[in-house]
């Protein structure tokens, strides 16, 4: 008796590690897990965005901005950071395509570049923080600004940790065309981080 949920794997093929059952089709379980995790993170940022928008509506869009005496937001710098992060998403995807073709060398190259761009983004973010004249306790704009960008930065940092792990494993030759779920998972996460930044940038710097 056949079953529609089975794939045509000959019996005896083995799946890797934790609880993969023979005959799974579709997205690898680990990737499903990452996707679900990302969904929860989207909702987390939704909550933070809600606080931003609510505060902005309460204060009034006209008066919304850094407190008196502080610098205006550095839009050019933020635009550069956006470019860096968007570029890093491209380089990450090049890496994914490379390993899908089995090209470990290119994977290492593109992952390294992505990692460098991510680190550059973080450095730029910290530099921006140092230049601003207000803090988290300087009124509701400061609070929402630092919370939103700060948690995003923390997620970028988490992503760079993931990229480092991927790079290390790639350098030890652990990935192949058929075996690179970790790369796919980290790249999914990295794209998510990028999309959230586009949201943050548009909201805080463009929409104001």
């Amino acid at each position, binding site marked *: 008796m056949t079953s529609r949920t089975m794939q045509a794997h000959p019996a005896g093929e083995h799946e890797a*590690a934790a609880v993969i059952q023979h005959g799974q089709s579709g997205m690898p379980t680990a990737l499903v897990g990452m996707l679900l995790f990302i969904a929860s993170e989207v909702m987390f940022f939704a909550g933070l965005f809600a606080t931003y928008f609510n505060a902005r509506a309460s204060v009034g869009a006209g008066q919304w901005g850094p407190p008196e005496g502080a610098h205006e937001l550095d839009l050019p710098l933020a635009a550069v950071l956006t470019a860096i992060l968007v570029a890093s998403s491209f380089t990450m995807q090049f890496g994914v395509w490379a390993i899908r073709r089995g090209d470990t060398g290119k994977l290492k190259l593109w992952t390294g570049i992505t990692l460098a761009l991510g680190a550059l983004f973080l450095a730029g973010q910290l530099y921006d923080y140092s230049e601003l004249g207000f803090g988290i306790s300087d009124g509701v704009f400061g609070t929402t600004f630092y919370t939103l960008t700060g948690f995003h930065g923390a997620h970028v940092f988490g992503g760079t940790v993931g990229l480092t*792990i991927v790079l290390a494993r790639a350098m030890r030759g652990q990935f192949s065309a058929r075996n690179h779920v970790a790369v796919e998972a980290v790249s999914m996460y990295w794209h998510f981080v990028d999309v959230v930044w586009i949201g943050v940038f548009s909201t805080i710097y463009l929409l104001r």
Partner: protein
Amino acid sequence: MPDTVIGFVLLGIVMLVVLGIVFAIASRGGPATAAAKPPRGVHMPGPSFLPVVMSVAAALLGAGLAFRGQDQLANPFLAIPGLLVLVAGVVAWVRAANHEWRDTEHGSHDDGAAH
């Protein structure tokens, strides 16, 4: 607050004593017994201390945040050990996942990370 510190030191001592007792009991092993094998084609991670350890570390970090003094980001005596153990735990987790991946027969075309 001095009381808090005393409270935590006492709690810590109690926990160490309890864990010591637990270890004393736990280190009494026994002869090899039959262990069930998984059906063919199914691979599962073995037992692990990491979930308990990571939970304790997360709780320490959290307690550090809750018990911060004025002008502190967090209480360093709690938060720093918590953070260190957490990081070490993540490293150990990823390495364990790697080992299990490599230990599975023939590798696979579906690298499910061992969780």
